[in-house]
């Protein structure tokens, strides 16, 4: 039980809550990198995914790409990029963005694919332009899956950003990596707990968002979707 005591001690230590290496600072860093990464990746992947889902083109390529990128080991990508671009944070952020793209892309195109073709046909026959069909019919109906893709991406990035501390990124992962270097186990555990809590909290937020997105329709739909 001393691990638990040591960890409680670590959290009770005031000095761990201030300064550049303090919890608030590291937490903000972590959130900042995550938000930046997901934002950039989303700006690329979501429009692309919507286009692929709406037109149906390049779908095979997209599926193959998202599938194969799941096999890429994140640590490998991080270290490889870090050796090519050794200075600054470009390397880890770039790697994080690349890893965030597959779930966002998949969420977008599979979301659009889940929309009933008949509904789209009716919308087109009523005289909606392609853009109107996309924005008024397809995206609203695809929203739960699109949000699901964002959720996956956010979790992926939060987890990988932790590992990225190994190649110099700040954030909560620093407690784990730095802690290991000096065999400071309580620090490692505390850092781990912080990351886990963050991940679960963000997950809960997105699950909530998904429920809201589905709930916009009739009650009959939301009960079958969880």
């Amino acid at each position: 039980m001393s691990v638990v005591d040591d960890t409680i001690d670590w959290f009770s230590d005031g000095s761990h809550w201030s300064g550049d290496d303090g919890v608030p600072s590291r937490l903000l860093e972590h959130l900042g990198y995550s938000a930046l990464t997901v934002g950039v990746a989303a700006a690329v992947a979501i429009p692309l995914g919507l286009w692929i889902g709406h037109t149906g083109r390049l779908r095979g390529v997209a599926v193959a790409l998202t599938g194969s990128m799941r096999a890429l080991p994140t640590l490998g990508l991080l270290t490889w990029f870090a050796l090519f671009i050794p200075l600054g944070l470009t390397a880890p952020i770039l790697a994080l963005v690349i890893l965030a793209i597959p779930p966002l892309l998949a969420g977008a195109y599979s979301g659009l694919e889940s929309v009933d073709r008949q509904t789209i046909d009716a919308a087109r026959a009523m005289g909606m332009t392609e853009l109107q069909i996309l924005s008024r019919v397809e995206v609203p109906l695809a929203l739960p899956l699109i949000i699901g893709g964002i959720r996956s991406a956010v979790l992926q990035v939060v987890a990988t950003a932790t590992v990225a501390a190994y190649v110099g990124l700040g954030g909560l992962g620093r407690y784990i990596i730095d802690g290991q270097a000096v065999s400071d186990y309580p620090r490692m555990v505390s850092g781990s707990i912080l990351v886990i809590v963050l991940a679960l909290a963000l997950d809960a937020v997105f699950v909530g968002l998904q429920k809201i997105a589905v709930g916009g329709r009739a009650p009959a739909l939301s009960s079958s979707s969880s």
Partner: protein
Amino acid sequence: MTWAWDNREQVLDLTLTHAWLSAVPMLLGFVIALPVGWYASRHRRLRGSLLSVGSILYSIPSLPLFVILPGVIGTGFLSPLNVVVALTIYAAAIMVRSATDAFTSVSPPVLDAATATGYSSRQRGLTVELPLAGPVLLAGLRVVSVSTVSLVSVGALIGVSNLGSLFTDGYRRDFTTEILVGVAGIVLLALLFDALLVLAGRLLMPWASLTRPSGVQ
């Protein structure tokens, strides 16, 4: 890539360890998830909570999980067991969802016919439901396989020897070739596992490849 050849013994050694560290969690996860998923497919009220638990477990990031496990289950700090247990948890979490879907996807009229023919509940479970749930289970296993093989590499950060060690070693020595060998090794291993799973699927479920020509897309 001559480096890879020169150090082939070491690379092979790491590959075997990596394969072992991937296969055990996959197997254990599958074995755990099967009864849980079967149970969940029958009890709608429990299904929601079981799937939620699985979802929460899967949301836990890997490196932190490796770190806190020794504290939780008392394993040695640098022990490969942490990696195995953590990856088993992930594998089980994914597979429970897969297994639930698999068993609910078995067509009720078929089950009904089996019962009417005179199968006992156990016989029906093993010889009718399980095989028919097979294709969806296989699809789930293939997803688990890819992510497990990839995640093992993170264990290198807590000193567990595997192909991921080539990443940490290569990084420290500023040697990109070593990193690439590691990536290649992991990707190849993932492909190998996937091929073995597909093969097992074809052998155990010959009927499935007839009705669904594109396999388990």
